[in-house]
């Protein structure tokens, strides 16, 4: 399929996706199918959901180090897909987990950090849901296109 134009993409995916980066992924598809990008995006969904679960557990156990690690992990893949809001949320979790403020200065109070992580985690989950809906819509719509062709 030919790539949809930016406006169309933005209307489907919303502002949580950096189009330049995401289009780079789309361009890796073989002409005529979205097999590769689909596998990447849906692979990411799985990874994200699993990571959120592990973050919840780590939050219960007040394991800041683990939270920072998980934040960094999901930041990597979300950045690759251009999911900027999720990426930024994950970076916050990474920082707070390292007991740092967003500007990198140290924050010695572990309880403050845990509370901030909790808040950031809620926010990132909702950002994720939004982008998940957008992406699923995008791939569904694509199927329709192909059926119609």
């Amino acid at each position, binding site marked *: 399929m030919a790539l949809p134009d930016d406006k169309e993409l933005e209307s489907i995916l919303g502002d949580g996706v950096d189009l330049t980066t995401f289009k780079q992924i789309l361009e890796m598809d073989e002409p005529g199918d979205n097999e590769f990008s689909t596998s990447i995006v849906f*692979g990411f969904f799985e990874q994200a959901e699993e990571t959120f679960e592990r973050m919840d557990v780590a939050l219960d156990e007040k394991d800041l180090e683990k939270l920072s*690690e998980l934040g960094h992990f999901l930041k990597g893949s979300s*950045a*690759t897909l251009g999911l900027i809001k999720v990426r930024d949320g994950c970076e916050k979790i990474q920082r707070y987990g390292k007991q740092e403020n967003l500007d990198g200065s140290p924050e010695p109070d572990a309880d403050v950090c845990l509370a901030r992580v909790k808040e950031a985690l809620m926010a990132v989950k909702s950002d994720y849901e939004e982008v998940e809906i957008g992406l699923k819509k995008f791939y569904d719509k694509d199927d329709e296109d192909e059926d119609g062709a």
Partner: protein
Amino acid sequence: MGTNTTITDTDRDRDSDTDSDLTNDICDLSPIPTLIVSPDYRIQRASKGVVDAWHRRRDDFLGKDLFAALYGGSPLERFDRIPLARAIEVAIAARNFRLCHAAYTADGVSYSARIIPIFRRDELLSLMLEWDPVEPKTPETRGEVIQHALSVDEVFRLLIQTVKDYAIFLLDTRGYVATWNAGAELLKGYTKEDIIGRHFSTFYGQEDLSAGKPEDELITCLREGRVQDEGWRYRKDGSRFWANVTITAIYRNGVHVGFGKVTRDLTERREGELRLIAAYEESAKLKNDFLANMSHEIRTPMHGMLSACALLLDTNLTEDQHDMANIISESGQVLLQVINGILDYSKLASGNFSVNTDLVGVANIISSVVRNVQMTLLPGVYIKLVLAPELPKSAQGDPLRFRQIFQNIIDNAVKFTEKGSVQVAASISAEDATSYTILTEVTDSGIGVAEDAVQNLFKPFTQLEKPTKKRYQGTGLGLSIAKSLAELLGGEMGYKPNLERNGSIFWFTVKLKKIANLDQLDAAGVQQQEKEKSQQEAEKEKMLKRLKEMAPQKRILAAEDNLVNQKVLSRVLNSLGFQHVTIASNGAEAVSILSASPNTYDLVLMDISMPVMDGFEATRKIRTYGNPIPIIAMTAYALRGDSETCLEKGMDDYISKPVNINKLLQKLLTWLDSPEWSKSVTNGPS
């Protein structure tokens, strides 16, 4: 009996028989084993000591030849006599006594001989041999006696000094030359005085020096105890020789004290090898030239014969005659194909192949070939054609060669598919301002290719089907020709197994130029913009082309822990033409892959933050092992300080994540584009 009284030269001795008898008696009665021997080595007297200590009879000695009496019966008599005979000669020449160490053994005890030559004026009268036991020893410890007497160090030093075919020398712990043997002098041209105290890296060439080879060798040697290497080494006069070098670390009481180095000159062997290679290349060229000439010469009469045969078939023939003429015609066609194949192959091999530029209608060519091939399908096999709608109606390229490549792989697919299907798919795999890359894929459900045979698929004169079966005819040239043609047309050819249906997928790409359409460029401004854009695009395209040309020969190791990123990164690298990409999921894995095969990879892409071992630590380890491979860090977008840290930590470059293809392209070109490569490109197809 003292020595100073033995050499007597007085008239009294000569005249007095009584004195002479007394002397004889004294000699005979001496408890020390003593032999009196005439100048012609006849034993004249043997003392009591001989009888007592050696348990031998006087008659064994008296009147006998000295050496026969002492050593007679020993299987190695001719060796046993050597030291004593020499010592006697020396004693006579010096006119003084000489010792001969352990010259005789009786009952497991070695006896040394004191040889006293007795002269009257210039006339040798007699030799007196007195024997003393060396030290009472049992036969088991005899070896030690000799060793004590000789001093091991002294012996080995002597042995090494005299070796002429090997340079054998010692280095101190830091690699300075400490000893130097005759062989080293001959081989390397430095005298002992020249070289002792100088560093062993003196023998290496500039290239090895800048690659850090000498230090690497010492490091490896310390780690593994021993290191072996072959390479060019330089003599004092600047001439070089092909050396085989073994370095061994030397420890004394557990303390490293230096290195032993043995160098052999293998120049002759090396030159022999080079001559063989040159001869092989020459013969391959002659073979190709011969094939090209022969096939060309054969083709002309072949065409004549086939045309005549076609005419013959149109005449009135009996049924038998018709059948036979048909056989002639069919066999002739097969023969012609074989000849054409050989001709193409030899032209490709010699680089005399021309590519024409004409209009290519990809869809038309593919459909037409598929239509023809349909006639040859085995019953029950069907063919499916999928043409992407955006395929260009026409573009510039070589339509005949394109057809030839496609014909070849589809012929193979049809030939080897006995049931199921053959599917042909064509699409645009890449496109830029000036060209399309067309991907054609032929998927069959035929016999497939055995895993171990894949590497031979594209080698000339190879047919994978076992020769005993003989089910399929052909020269085994088809695929190798098709692959070379695809490369001539700016593309590639490859194989992958058809996992779904147990057959093969052969694919190839070719590059076709776009036909400039002037209508689109109406306004001058747009034109200018387009021009700049297309210049940029062209520049990018040029870089991409360069990278894609060298990528298949390059191996990349990428360390990245996130599965999603791993997949994207492999895809990006594959799309840039890399076929050999290994993914390590943490730093420790990357280090172990690299240390297991240090020369396999050309470049490392290294994520920084990874579990088990991070990218910094991994880089440090890789550098500790002395591996100079380029390492490009992939740093997360947010941690800005990382970039500088990367260079400090021994990495060569960095690229921010998420990885941008164009940036990556640039970095890869910077680190992989070596001067050798650009040289080889000038020989490539134009």
